[in-house]
């Protein structure tokens, strides 16, 4: 123990901050952030291991960005605790700042600097020397391809280029934990693919912990080791993408219907082989462990209701189904109670 403490003391002052040996990169307990009476983050418990890619999935306004801003020390929580890279975001925000990098939702850049100037400034603010900045510029630009545009004004960059530069800026000081808030929203598929491969590379080659928010299910599916689903400021489900998909049954039956019959959902729920049912507008999504026998039962059950079946498709589940299942179930529960 003593050895460790002496080591820490030597690292005080202008010495480099060594990575803390904490096994968890991000841990929150009962985290709440309100704006007025509205709780954007409403009691979130989260644990992200070092070296993990954690995908935080939810629709617009679910509280994703607010959570990221709390974890990045930009917003104070109203209740609960958050520890990032071994330090409490409220008690030791400065220690957290040394260890994290973030690319927030809107690429936060300055149009009148060149890419190189922006990255160099970023390095200086993190205390890097000029020679370290030169080294990091080379290293970061190997990871994030910006090409010859690096010496052009940022105002001339395309959306995809700005995102990449923003990512590069977040990496200049070699952070332990990287936050990416909707890194591909608004990008064309090619730019999105390159961001994806950069994220994978940072994680696999450098072991960087990455906390990524997204409203795209396929993005969470493609990148994340574990996915947390957020709805109305609460974590409603969490797990590896495959486990989440399995949680709603082996297969999914999607039925397009017309008409209205409030008893239909209840009728479907009574079928033995059906695990979960949700409805959103004219689409009923059914999770089942035995699709072959469920299909006929579903068709029969629906034919006895006032709904007309327009199409019926069986497929393997996606995170989209999990999401609809969780959020749709909630909306529907309100309808049944009423």
């Amino acid at each position, binding site marked *: 123990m003593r050895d460790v403490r002496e080591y820490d003391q030597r690292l005080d002052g202008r010495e480099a901050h060594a990575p803390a040996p904490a096994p968890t990169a991000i841990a929150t307990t009962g985290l709440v952030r309100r704006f007025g009476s509205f709780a954007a983050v409403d009691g979130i418990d989260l644990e992200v291991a070092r070296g993990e890619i954690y995908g935080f999935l939810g629709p617009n306004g679910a509280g994703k960005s607010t959570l990221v801003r709390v974890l990045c020390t930009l917003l104070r929580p109203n209740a609960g605790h958050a520890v990032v890279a071994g330090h409490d975001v409220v008690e030791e925000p400065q220690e957290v700042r040394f260890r994290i990098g973030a690319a*927030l939702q809107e690429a936060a850049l300055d149009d009148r600097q060149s890419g190189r100037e922006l990255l160099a400034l970023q390095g200086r603010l993190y205390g890097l020397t000029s020679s370290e900045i030169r*080294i990091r510029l080379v290293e970061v630009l190997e990871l994030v391809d910006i090409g010859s545009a690096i010496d052009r004004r940022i105002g001339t960059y395309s959306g995809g280029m700005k995102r990449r530069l923003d990512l590069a800026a977040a990496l200049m000081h070699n952070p332990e934990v990287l936050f990416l808030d909707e890194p591909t929203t608004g990008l064309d598929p090619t730019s999105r693919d390159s961001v994806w491969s950069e994220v994978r590379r940072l994680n696999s080659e450098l072991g960087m912990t990455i906390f990524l928010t997204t409203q795209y299910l396929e993005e969470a599916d493609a990148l994340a080791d574990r996915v947390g689903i957020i709805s109305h400021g609460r974590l409603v489900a969490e797990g590896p993408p495959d486990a989440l998909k399995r949680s709603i049954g082996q297969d999914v039956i999607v039925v397009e219907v017309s008409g209205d019959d409030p008893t239909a959902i209840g009728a479907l729920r009574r079928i033995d082989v059906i695990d979960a049912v949700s409805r959103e507008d004219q689409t009923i999504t059914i999770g089942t462990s035995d699709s072959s026998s469920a299909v006929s039962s579903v068709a029969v059950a629906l034919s006895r209701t006032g709904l007309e079946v327009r199409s019926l498709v069986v497929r393997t589940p996606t995170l989209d189904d999990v999401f609809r299942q969780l959020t749709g179930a909630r909306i529907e529960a309100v309808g049944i109670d009423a």
Partner: protein
Amino acid sequence: MRTRRGEPIRARESGFLRDVRSVAGRALRQIPREPASVLPAVLIPAFFYTVNLGALENLARGAPGFSYKAFLVPMAIAFAVTGMSRAPTLVTDIQGGYFDRLCMTPIRRVALLLGLMAADVVVIVTLCIPVLAIGFAVGVRFATGAPGVLAFVALSALWGLVFTGLPYAVALKTGSPAAVNATFVVFFPLFFLSDAVVPKQALTGWFSTIATYNPVTYVLAALRSLITSGWRVGTLMEGLAAVAGIGIVSMALALTALRSRISQGA
């Protein structure tokens, strides 16, 4: 991720002055890329100086030895440097999210503001050059000589600096470009209800009363004394006191606004 020497490069404390320099350097780099942001501050004083001189010089000719040309130079300087700040850049940063990016770095929060103010001082000193050049061109000479010119520039810079507190306070409080532009309005009553254009002896009634209590009157008097009267310690002290008074108020406003902007709003 290691350097070629095998040591990992990690973030560390950067030092307060280095932070201020980094922020100021970035702000100054922007200026030649957007000359429109400082061009009015060169043209407007030149315009007012010429127009006032042309329109009023004959009327203002009075006491022997009085030079309206010299009298107006502080007016032109005040026009050049007052309200000249990087606050519009700050608003852009706040709106665009770059300010958040800076706040996520370990930079000392006060350096975010002081860096911009340091850049302002550089700009203000630079803006004094064309105004003084016009003055010299029409025959104005400093009774205090070259050291007086330096003192004149220093006092002008201080005055310009303290006035920046106001636009920064508004920028940090509102994040609105329109509100920042509106702060220039404060300058008008302060400026025109002083003896900027007409000598104090010629002012009468309520106008004279207001001018007497207007700190700008004393700043201008101090600047003017350096040109026309020589080293008048009392006048210079009054001018410095006026600058300090405005400075205390404006800097308090700016720092309060900075604190509330970065308080993470718990």
